[in-house]
């Protein structure tokens, strides 16, 4: 699913966010990216989400080279990815339902289909009864769950989450992680950047650890051998 070959990302001004990172995440795998802030977690996710391009090395998503992808194909590639942000990035000018339905209307689904799938996604995160509420009236945990519903409503193959529990208390964080594990169980590849090590320890999932842009720990290949990865 995701392949990095010696990927280096250097920002203007010379700061190197990623140095020579190579890794491989297979279909259906779930993994965590850990490390201190500034270690390069977000940059790694941004390269996969086509927000940044590698300075050197190759990044592949489903064997598509992200370095050379033309601008007009970017939206279509992104439709296979669900992104969850730390600050959930909801649109506050419209109700929960419209927020969650957005990926579907972008892709031109019919209203009946949109309604069905949106309600299913809201049900999945336990917020079906809030579909008419405005996001501002929801609690932080509820807002994050709406963000998750929006990220999964179009059934993406890959779920990326950047510090999804950063602003939540431990109980809520656990609940959010549980939702990710459930999605992984139905075949979605999940990559979560987090520095909440206690929570990660509870879940028996492989880790990628970064330090100052360098890969210092990578359990991905091991776990792939253990559980057969997700090769089909």
């Amino acid at each position, binding site marked *: 699913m995701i392949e990095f070959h010696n990927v280096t990302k250097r920002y203007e001004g010379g700061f190197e966010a990623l140095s020579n990172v190579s890794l491989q995440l297979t279909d259906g795998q779930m993994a965590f990216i850990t490390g201190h802030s500034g270690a390069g977690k977000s940059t790694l996710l941004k390269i996969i989400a086509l927000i940044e391009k590698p300075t050197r090395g190759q990044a592949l998503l489903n064997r598509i080279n992200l370095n050379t992808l033309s601008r007009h194909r970017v939206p279509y590639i992104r439709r296979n990815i669900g992104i969850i942000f730390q600050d959930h990035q909801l649109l506050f000018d419209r109700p929960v339902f419209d927020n969650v339905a957005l990926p579907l209307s972008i892709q031109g689904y*019919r209203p009946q289909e949109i309604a069905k799938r949106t309600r299913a996604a809201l049900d999945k995160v336990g917020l079906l009864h809030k579909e008419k509420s405005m996001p501002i009236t929801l609690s932080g945990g509820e807002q994050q769950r709406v963000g998750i519903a929006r990220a999964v409503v179009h059934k993406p193959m890959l779920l990326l989450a950047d510090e999804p529990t950063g602003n939540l208390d431990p109980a809520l964080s656990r609940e959010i992680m549980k939702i990710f594990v459930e999605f992984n169980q139905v075949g979605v590849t999940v990559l979560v950047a987090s520095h909440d090590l206690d929570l990660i320890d509870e879940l028996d999932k492989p880790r990628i650890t970064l330090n100052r842009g360098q890969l210092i720990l990578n359990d991905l290949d091991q776990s792939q051998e253990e559980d057969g990865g997700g090769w089909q």
Partner: protein
Amino acid sequence: MAVAGSNKRRRTPAASNRISAYLLHHLQTMMFSLRKIYAAPATTIMTVAVIGITLSLPGGFYLFLKNIDAMSGDFRSSSQISLYLDLKTSEKQAQALEKQIAKMEQVISTRFISRELSLEEFRQNSGFGKSIDTLSTNPLPHTIIVEPGQADTFAVRNLLNSLQAMPEVEIAKLDTEWLERLYTIIEIAKRSVAIITILFACAVLLIIGNTIRLDIQNRYQEIIVTKLIGATNAFIRRPFLYSGIWYGLLGGIISWLIVEIGYLAISGPLERLNLLYKSDMNLITFSFHDFIVLITSSTLLGLAGSWIAVARHLNQIEPS
């Protein structure tokens, strides 16, 4: 597994459904944009009022010219050419010439005034009766009054030249030089209105462009988010283009109202003036055709203005 191949798994909508969903999406975007500009009444009223006032100026000038044009059309039909014949021409020859000219294509009617009749008229009207009696010969020529068929000054000029070229004609005189001056002034006014219209259309483009630019800045976050979940530029552009269309349409209606109200305000004294001149001229207001042209062009200006803003600013916004 390629990304595109995943569509099979995800059961994307069928083609026919996609088209109806596309049209429906356009309708939804249209209504969404309308709700947006309705939700910000202060901005909307200001923008629409500025567009309306801006467009009402060329609109009003246009209407004014249209009236002047109609009025001058009345004068036009009254233009005459007087032919003063050579003194050696006999009355018989002159009458034959009149018949010949009457048959000409560009001529509606002719009238023959013999030199005797002219002298008689002059004696009665001028007050120089006694001094005329002292003359041994009649100094006045036979005269033919020609009424041209075409109102166009160029055609009248041509006719004048061809009449002047006739051997019997001493002097051919067009009575309407002042009218020509009027036409020239009207022509200048028409071109000025065209220039004003172009300038004000540009102003409307800038006004709408600026409003949409601010709108784009206000919805920066929304644009970023929709880009991140896979919206194409066309999808993001659409609501802004519809906003521009709405601004243009509403501005056009306002400008029409302004011109109509202005017209009502001056129609009272104008009618009195009409009465004083014993003219049966009816004042002309916007026809349905004019109304449609005004509304369509303001709507298109709205679309063009928002397109410029969107093309300039939307591509610069990328998630980071």
